[in-house]
């Protein structure tokens, strides 16, 4: 208990918590950095930082089951290699990861037993992360684990969980396995297990900072963050890449790289003509970035592929050209198909060589849709 006279200013992290983390090998600097990064990613006021830190201190850490289906383990890799700042350390330390095929020591029936134990003992309380799509064709034979189909496993594990976090574009929207012609009948977790509580964190791979922030939100508030109609958390998918892009001033000024390596490309001009799908893609890549916030595709000189949008493999190709049937240049013929009316505004403005005011209209519209968490 704290003496009211020595009470810390709002938002600061109590000394005992810092000391406890130090004992576990996480320096106070790393822990504070982690809490402030999480608070910022979730768009929470700074005053919430203390509460975030306290949530990571409670005794009742929920167990976590990590399922892999039609995946490439890219999301697991992103999570395990994360050290922005020591995210995996803090989260892995705090949660008990009872099942994760890529990292667990047990194999075979021992592994399966660990999973079943968690489901029974923590029914309705554990968290699930799912990576990879679920094949529905031919009785689910295209993905089995321990002799059972991915579909049965997902139904059982996600159906009894407190919440399921689908990570990566395959688990959220079917991803590459579901691309035409989709021979295995691959679907997302939400389609395979309609009754489960699922939040979608698309991306190829998921940005681990968004995954960690979603878990931290759950631990802090006891519920998942607010989502859009595609079940994506608004804190991470509420804004368009194009609107936060560092090359945006070049777009507005009509300065475009025409080919890779040309003078415009070398000077960091806009990648629109090289196929950038930033105008159609909603994600916080420009602000959060990857690998400890060091860079992201557009900063590295490559256009956005739109990997976190539904059916990106079909909807966003060809990756290195603007979408086909472009009258003049700019207007997106597939705007309706993708279902983002704002793209049309972008295209028109582009043709008119970027009239900033049209974007402002779009920006405002969008800003209205983004609901900040309390």
């Amino acid at each position, binding site marked *: 208990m704290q003496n009211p006279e020595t009470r810390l200013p709002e938002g600061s992290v109590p000394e005992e918590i810092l000391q406890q983390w130090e004992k576990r090998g996480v320096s106070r600097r790393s822990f504070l950095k982690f809490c402030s990064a999480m608070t910022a990613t979730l768009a929470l006021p700074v005053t919430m930082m203390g509460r975030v830190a306290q949530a990571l201190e409670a005794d009742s850490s929920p167990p976590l089951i990590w399922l*892999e*289906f*039609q995946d*490439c*383990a890219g999301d697991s890799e992103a999570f395990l290699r994360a050290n922005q700042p020591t995210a995996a350390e803090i989260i892995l330390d705090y949660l008990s990861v009872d099942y994760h*095929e*890529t*990292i*667990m*020591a*047990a*194999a*075979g029936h021992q*592994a*399966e037993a660990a999973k079943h134990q968690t489901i029974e003992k923590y029914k309705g309380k554990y968290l699930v992360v799912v990576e990879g799509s679920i*094949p529905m064709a031919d009785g689910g034979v*295209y*993905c*089995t*684990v*321990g*002799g059972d189909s991915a579909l049965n496993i997902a139904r059982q594990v996600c159906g009894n969980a407190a919440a399921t976090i689908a990570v990566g574009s395959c688990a959220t929207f079917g991803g*590459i*396995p579901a691309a035409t012609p*989709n*021979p*295995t009948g*691959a679907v997302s977790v939400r389609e395979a297990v309609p009754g489960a509580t699922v939040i979608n964190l698309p991306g190829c791979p998921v940005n681990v900072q968004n995954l960690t922030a979603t878990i931290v939100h759950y631990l802090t508030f006891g519920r998942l963050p607010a989502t859009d109609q595609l079940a994506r958390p608004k804190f991470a998918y509420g804004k368009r890449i194009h609107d936060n892009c560092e090359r945006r001033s070049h777009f507005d000024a009509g300065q475009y790289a025409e080919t890779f390596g040309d003078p415009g490309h070398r000077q960091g001009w806009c990648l629109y003509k090289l196929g950038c799908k930033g105008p159609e893609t909603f994600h916080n890549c420009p602000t959060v970035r990857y690998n400890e916030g060091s860079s992201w595709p557009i900063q590295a000189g490559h256009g956005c592929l739109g990997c976190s949008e539904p059916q990106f493999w079909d909807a966003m190709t060809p990756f290195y050209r603007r979408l086909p049937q472009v009258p003049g240049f700019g207007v997106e013929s597939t705007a309706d198909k993708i279902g983002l009316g704002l793209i049309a505004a972008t295209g028109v403005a582009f043709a008119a060589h970027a009239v900033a005011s049209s974007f402002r209209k779009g920006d405002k519209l969008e800003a209205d849709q983004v609901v900040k968490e309390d």
Partner: protein
Amino acid sequence: MARKIAVDPITRIEGHLRIEAQIEGGKITNAWSSSTMYRGI
């Protein structure tokens, strides 16, 4: 007498794998591996 065991899932690898082994007199005399996931790519 030959005995058959199956280890599924094989963990600490990327991907999905099942190994079946036939054991005779404490020795593995035959083994089969199956990749239990197909994405159609």
